């Protein structure tokens, strides 16, 4: 998608709202949030789109040249300290922000590894493309072992590693990673997914539970949070 304004300022972990506006006859669709997956020097941004329901089915039917309504970049990105080693933990399309992040972080001399889990082989994003985009390989896990190692991404985490953990994926995975981080005293930032309407902080639709008992808007205060800011089930 061509959007030089977004591409220029986007940072890994931020997202865009993608919709089809109000002009298409007979169509009403709320825009949907998507992590920015990569950007190119010529002002394009890319996302990783997996068809899930009506909205993603509709967006996946768009063709080259169709116009979409893009709002972004939105939200808070991952926060890295210079030189810090980073372990990215991705589940499913939660891979998207790390495609963006791993490339940029490696270019900035971070030591980056990427653990990436899927249900099974057909879902796995092309490893060659991952290499191209991130400048490194992903350690792949599938639940049924049909690609990479068999098991959950959390099995790919090293308890003795003191690197910063970054995680993006389904909530059960985030919970497992959060439990791991807590148990091992690791720093963790998670990117959460919650239903959104506006994406810019006006509707209060996208809240997640804060550790302090507040509901926190994930579109403006997130989607990336320090795991300690959120209330995890015990």
């Amino acid at each position, binding site marked *: 998608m061509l959007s030089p304004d977004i591409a220029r300022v986007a940072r890994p972990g931020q997202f865009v709202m993608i919709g089809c506006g109000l002009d298409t006859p007979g169509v009403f669709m709320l825009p949907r949030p998507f992590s920015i997956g990569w950007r190119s020097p010529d002002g394009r941004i890319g996302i990783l789109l997996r068809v899930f329901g009506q909205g993603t089915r509709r967006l996946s039917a768009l063709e080259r040249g169709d116009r979409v*309504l893009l709002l972004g970049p939105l939200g808070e990105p991952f926060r890295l300290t210079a030189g810090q080693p980073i372990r990215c933990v991705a589940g499913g399309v939660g891979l998207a922000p790390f495609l963006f992040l791993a490339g940029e972080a490696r270019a900035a001399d971070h030591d980056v590894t990427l653990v990436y889990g899927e249900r099974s082989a057909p879902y796995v994003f092309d490893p060659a493309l991952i290499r191209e985009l991130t400048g490194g390989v992903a350690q792949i896990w599938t639940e049924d072992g049909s690609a990479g190692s068999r098991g959950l991404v959390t099995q790919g985490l090293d308890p003795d590693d003191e690197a910063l953990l970054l995680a993006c994926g389904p909530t059960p995975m985030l919970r497992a990673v959060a439990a791991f981080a807590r148990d091992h005293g690791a720093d963790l930032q998670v990117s959460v997914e*919650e239903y959104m309407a506006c994406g810019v902080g006006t509707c209060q639709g996208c809240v997640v539970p804060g550790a302090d008992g507040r509901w926190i808007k994930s579109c403006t205060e997130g989607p990336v949070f320090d795991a300690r800011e959120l209330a995890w089930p015990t």
Partner: protein
Amino acid sequence: MADLSQELFGAEFQSPVLLASGTCGYGEEYADLIPLDELGGLVTKAVSVEPRRGNPPHRVSETPGGMINAIGLENVGLDAFIAEKLPWLRANLQRAQVFVNVVGWTEDDFARVVLGLDDEDGFLGFEINVSCPNVKGGTLFGTDEQALAGLVKRLRAATDRPLIVKLTPNVPDVTVYARICEEGGADGLSAINTFPGMLIDVERRRPVIGNVSGGVSGPAILPMGVYLTWRAASACSIPIMGIGGIRSAEDALQYVLGGASLVQVGTSSFVDPQASVTVHDGISAYLDRHGVEKLSDLVGALDVPDPPSPPTLDAG
């Protein structure tokens, strides 16, 4: 260029297009995205006496032709509104008019918000959200004739500012409630709030919305909103703000022709933050195209012809 401005509630509305409560936060959130101060104005998120945490997620989801929301009236509460939100509105909106959406669960709740704000600067008037349960009666204020009458009189006594009551759609006859508001001294009406609705995730056999049910808004409710506005307008003579499903100038003009002096754009701003601006520009173009000098000439200008009797084949 046609004249879109109107003098209403003792104030100047440079445009008939406002942003609807709950869909534009407290203004600030949209400041970078749209030229707020060029609109007719905005209605803030509901303000209650105490801060409210609101409902668990999911709070929003798409429905066919619209969306459902159950935010749970989350808001910062009266004091924080005055301290943190109003100053921004005061400082940044000079020409756009601001209404504060007020919510409560007893008459006292509403009155305290109104009294607490009455002396503040930075807003024009109040929009009273009566689509919330009356803890005394169990019904909604907006569907209970007595509770509504009592509330409007009480608030009328509490303020000289423009007092707008926002009507609830799920009543058998909206004219009854419109008249109650007018008789109680309301300066205007907003029609309409959302319709109660529910979505079920059939794979998990659970409600999609954390609060189980929520309010349905968006284009899906456009014909209902136009109807209720037209009915309300037929029953009273105070100005009406038409709300529900407005995406385009054409949608907005349905409300205007049906009797609304102003319109509010809600859900459509989520689909396209520029929606309100597009609606404004489209209305302006319509007036020019039809040689209508000022918008107010169109308010309620619906022509309801008698069908020929006996019926004949007429030109559509």
